[in-house]
């Protein structure tokens, strides 16, 4: 992605995070660019959006995102532009073709034919692709008028997964109906069937993004085998690793039968090593169900989880004593350690959004991860993984699992009129409130004595007495504005605790 696209996205994400107007100066500072560039970016975004302006402006206040349109825009923006490939897309498509047929060489003319580019562009593309492939320990070889990608099968598969963007889908059910993705429909159905079988046999469910990850592994396996039916890998798995896998009986059986089913579908034998490949993916995926308990956790998983919780609680300054985050996080850490060991990367499609929305948590997680990989002698933990972990802590903070509920008194003139109504509305929207009682305002003093530990009074009527307890006047409509003010009040109370 070019830096310009990146800026556009950053701008949109930042605006989507802010409910109020943002000035051009602030935007320029965030994007580290000039005000002029900000104006230009906004104009460009608005010009390109389908209907009206995506970003609205008001004199003296700045810019704001039309949120409804933004959501719509995000959807429509995914549409594939058929004939119009950027240089980046062109290289990706060519690499895809080469990777799928590797190690078979392909004719350069055939590869570039559809893109109408000249010799110098082809030469440049070769260099760029070669650099990209080097990251995966693969070599782009030019011989006469052909190109070929050479390297270990594991690396080829990894490169395919990273380069092919269609694996960025979020909803696996989308695969069946989405035309734009251009998958082989029969393959998709067969693989989805296999995924269901895996889930059934292990009596678990595999949540996003791990289901997509296994899906793409199997899809690549099918595509590779079809293009290269007779190809025999040079990769070898040590006996020790194979033995370990066989000890993990359930997973091994499932991997074996899945590969067997795929052999039947392909009508072609697959090498033994495929079972090990799939096994690696299975143990690196989070599964929900009977396995989702603490009893199956190793002491290493427990230690790493604790290290995360301790590290995060000092860095973001909150007290985490909740058991639920531990279980939740530990069940994420367990397959994550497997991923690190087998160097399997799960792409985090939400990463850029996570980085912007939970900036602070993300950078803390990153720090803690660095510390942990050193402490426990693990391979470096990448940003995709840090993004996932960020979500666990963000969820905890947003749902205030680490805080005790706020003891709240609700008040109106009678104690049964608007206050009861407010109670019903507020308790639905603000689970962080514990509504202790609903009372009439004239009895204030008496209640103050009765409920000495009250932290907040929510009232639909103005209270004239001077009270020491935090108090918020809201309308019985409980409008968006009321809800925002209450949210702020809750944060204040949390802050003062």
């Amino acid at each position, binding site marked *: 992605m070019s830096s310009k696209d990146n800026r556009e996205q950053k701008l949109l994400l930042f605006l989507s995070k802010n409910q109020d107007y943002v000035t051009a100066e602030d935007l320029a500072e965030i994007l580290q660019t000039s005000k002029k560039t900000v104006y230009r970016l906004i104009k460009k975004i608005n010009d390109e959006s389908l209907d009206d302006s995506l970003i609205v402006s008001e004199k003296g206040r700045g810019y704001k995102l039309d949120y409804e349109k933004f959501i719509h825009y995000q959807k429509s923006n995914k549409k594939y532009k058929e004939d119009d490939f950027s240089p980046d897309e062109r290289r990706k498509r060519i690499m895809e073709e080469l990777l799928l047929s590797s190690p078979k060489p392909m004719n350069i003319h055939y590869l570039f034919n559809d893109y109408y580019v000249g010799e110098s562009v082809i030469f440049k593309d070769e260099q760029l692709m070669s650099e990209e492939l080097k990251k995966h320990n693969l070599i782009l070889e030019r011989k006469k008028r052909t190109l070929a990608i050479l390297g270990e099968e594991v690396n080829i598969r990894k490169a395919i997964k990273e380069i092919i963007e269609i694996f960025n889908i979020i909803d696996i059910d989308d695969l069946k109906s989405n035309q734009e993705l251009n998958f082989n429909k029969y393959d998709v159905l067969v693989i989805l069937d296999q995924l269901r079988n895996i889930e059934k046999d292990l009596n678990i469910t595999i949540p996003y993004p791990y289901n997509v990850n296994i899906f793409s592994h199997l899809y690549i396996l099918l595509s590779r085998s079809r293009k290269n039916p007779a190809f025999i890998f040079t990769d070898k798995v040590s006996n020790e690793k194979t033995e370990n896998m066989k000890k993990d009986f359930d997973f091994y059986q499932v991997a074996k039968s899945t590969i067997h089913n795929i052999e039947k579908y392909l009508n072609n034998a697959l090498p033994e090593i495929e079972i090990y490949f799939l096994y690696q993916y299975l143990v690196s995926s989070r599964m929900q169900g009977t396995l989702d308990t603490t009893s199956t956790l190793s002491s290493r998983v427990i230690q790493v989880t604790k290290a995360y919780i301790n590290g995060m609680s000092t860095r973001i300054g909150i007290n985490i004593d909740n058991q639920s985050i531990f279980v939740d996080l530990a069940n994420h850490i367990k397959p994550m350690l497997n991923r690190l060991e087998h160097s399997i990367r799960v792409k985090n499609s939400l990463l850029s959004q996570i980085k912007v929305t939970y900036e602070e948590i993300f950078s803390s997680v990153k720090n803690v991860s660095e510390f942990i990989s050193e402490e426990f002698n693990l391979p470096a933990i990448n940003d995709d993984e840090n993004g996932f972990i960020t979500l666990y802590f963000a969820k905890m903070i947003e749902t205030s699992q680490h805080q005790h509920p706020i003891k709240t008194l609700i008040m109106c003139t009678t104690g049964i009129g608007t206050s009861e109504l407010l109670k019903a509305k507020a308790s639905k929207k603000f689970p962080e409130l514990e509504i202790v009682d*609903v009372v009439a305002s004239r009895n204030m003093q008496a209640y103050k004595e009765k409920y000495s530990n009250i932290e907040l009074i929510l009232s639909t009527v103005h209270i004239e007495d001077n009270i020491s307890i935090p108090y918020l006047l809201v309308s019985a409509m409980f409008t968006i504005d009321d809800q925002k003010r209450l949210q702020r009040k809750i944060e204040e109370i949390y802050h003062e605790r």
Partner: protein
Amino acid sequence: MNDNSLFQIYFDSDLETKEQVYDFISEIACAHASFQQKQDIIHQLNEREKAGSPLIAEHVLLPHIESEHVIESQIILFRLAKPMHWDETIEDIRMIIAILLKKGEEEAIKKKMAGFTRSLADEDYVERLLNVEEIEFHKEIIKIREES
């Protein structure tokens, strides 16, 4: 059907101003009481409004007071024949639900009344009350009465 019930329903009510509504409510609250007592009720209703808006949803008002002048606790529902201009800030009112609570009312009655107000938190329910025909309107109220 409103006898012995907490609820009084006035469908297609032709009340047109806030003053008329409060007058009417004070009549129901203490039918045989003195002028002064009725004025007290009206004063209380006005005071309540000063303390906080009685608007609970678009087109719906919920004035409510607790007073020793109230003889019997009641919930009075007005579905207005014509949308009402209430004051400078509140317009287009189509339904008024007044709650009159007798001072020192027993808990069981209070609970019933509270149950009804809670049901007003359900936007769909309020929406139905605003739009249904008379027979349906009664049915909706009966339903809640029996549940609470």
